């Protein structure tokens, strides 16, 4: 487990660093079209490790810049989703009663619609969405599951004695929620965030592939796959390399999420706690 987590976080760290340093590490300009005839659809070689596309652009450089888009869309959308889901779930769980019942029925309804369908519907209606709106839409549709988890935890934690003690001390509702309850829900949130990033990368790629996501001239990994989609037989490298990157990143995020979940699981730590108690 620990080894997997190490590898996963290593992979993620490399991709993030490369994306951040794109102007310095990318061998070519990702949008330059140096020779649309001579350098078109070159197979991978030493000078173009990932080959070139039909506009003679270097696929490796495009992938490196694409990482910036893919990762930031995923990170920002997840941040939005986490914030919404945590607040919504925390309010439902903490206030309880009828408020909780209504809020949770809304989530149930939202969860019954597949997210991809929902996204396609929204994006298809709204042609040529600006990037920031895409992020908002991805974030706003991704918090339902988390809100239920947070709510369940808040609900059970609300009954614990240390929360009662805080109330007895005169702590206000928000103070109890933010100082006492949410820090204890943090493990769930962190795990959900890690898994969420992996999920959004795939989602966004799918949408961009369908032409509904990131719009040109910006290019995410998904849009690069789309660039090569119609010549997948002749110039497979255009789609293969961004595809591999998507799969690798998503798997790394999932592995890290699972490892974190295991690490946060109290049952895994039970023995050490008992030791400390004795």
């Amino acid at each position, binding site marked *: 487990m620990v080894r997997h987590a190490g590898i996963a976080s290593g992979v993620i760290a490399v991709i993030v660093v490369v994306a951040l340093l794109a102007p310095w590490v990318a061998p070519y300009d990702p949008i330059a079209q140096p020779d649309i005839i001579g350098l078109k659809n070159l197979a991978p070689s030493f000078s173009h490790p990932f080959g070139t596309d039909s506009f003679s652009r270097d696929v490796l450089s495009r992938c490196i810049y694409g990482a910036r888009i893919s990762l930031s869309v995923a990170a920002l959308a997840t941040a939005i989703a986490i914030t919404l889901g945590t607040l919504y779930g925390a309010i439902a769980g903490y206030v309880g009663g009828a408020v909780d019942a209504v809020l949770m029925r809304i989530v149930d309804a939202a969860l019954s619609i597949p997210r991809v369908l929902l996204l396609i519907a929204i994006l298809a209606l709204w042609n040529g969405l600006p990037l920031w709106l895409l992020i908002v839409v991805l974030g706003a549709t991704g918090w339902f599951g988390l809100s239920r988890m947070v709510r369940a935890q808040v609900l059970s934690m609300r009954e*614990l*004695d240390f929360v009662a003690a805080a109330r007895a001390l005169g702590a206000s509702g928000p103070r109890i929620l933010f100082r006492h309850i949410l820090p204890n829900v943090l493990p769930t949130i962190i795990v959900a965030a890690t898994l969420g990033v992996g999920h959004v990368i795939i989602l966004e790629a799918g949408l961009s592939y369908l032409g509904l996501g990131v719009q040109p001239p910006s290019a995410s990994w998904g849009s690069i796959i789309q660039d090569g989609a119609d010549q997948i037989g002749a110039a497979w490298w255009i789609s293969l390399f961004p595809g591999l990157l998507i799969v690798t990143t998503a798997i790394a995020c999932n592995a890290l999420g699972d490892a974190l979940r295991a690490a946060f699981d109290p049952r895994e730590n039970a023995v050490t706690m008992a030791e400390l108690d004795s």
Partner: protein
Amino acid sequence: MTSARTNPALLQVTRLRKDFPVRQGLQHSLFGRNAAAIRAVNDVSFDIARGETLGVVGESGCGKTTMGRAILRLIEPTSGSVVFDGIDVATLHGAALRSMRRKMQVVFQDPFSSLNPRMTVGAAVREGMLIHHLAEGRAADHRVKTLFEEVGLNPDYASRYPHEFSGGQRQRIGVARALSVEPEMIVCDEPVSALDVSVQAQVINLMQDLQRDRGLTYLFIAHDLSVVRHIADRVAVMYLGRIVETASADDLYSNPTMPYTQALLSAVPRPEPGRQTARIVLQGEPPSPANPPPGCVFYSRCQHPLKDDDCTRVVPPLEEKTPAHFAACIKQPSQLP
């Protein structure tokens, strides 16, 4: 309940009741009144004088915790009044309630769940001071340190987390947290039940010292009758949500009047070989609090020789049988067998 006690009552509880709905579904929480309810606390009245310790005993599920929490307004009482120092706590709201809380604190049974695992114990003790603006910055640090010393903990431990402490040490931290806002009364809900005999003695002594030094008033809930005898001035015995007997500790332990109290006391194992007095072994189970029987709640298990149908007709009132000794039994007290 007027007795010869001279101190004015600090806490007066009158006809306190707490019902829990039996089912909770959407329809119930959205639209309305629940028909069935558990009578967890049923028509309880008592008072506590300033500086006094009232012990509360009774079997598991009889409503001790619920009563303590309803007094603290950690749960909303269904009806009844709780007057603390002349103010009816049951009617307070918002900021007024929060500032009232300073005066009434609580120490819990479970040393593990009663501290936030992600907050240092120093921060836990400090929190109340910040909430009530009693001290800030350096001054707060200093007070935390003093409190740690007062409860017998090394002040250097303030930056540690709860899991680094033993059960007894955590109970001390819980006591320090309660003391941080300088309360007048502390509701102690089985504060030593989870502790070893040797650690229990340490915590009990600590609580007694604090009471002496600070003039604290305790509502001390416990199921260990020996502990209550040791710490309490007066004792209230609960059965199925009702107080069935109250008297001074000495009086109650030497002259238990209500048949349930007699059974309870006779059941305590004595750590003295061969000294066990005849035990009254109660038959059957206590009735369900969702469906309490009419009349005396103890009727079904009562061993009183004179028990008869009258007992099932009236709820026996808590009557003063001998001076300052109240019992809820309509029959003449029987002697212990």
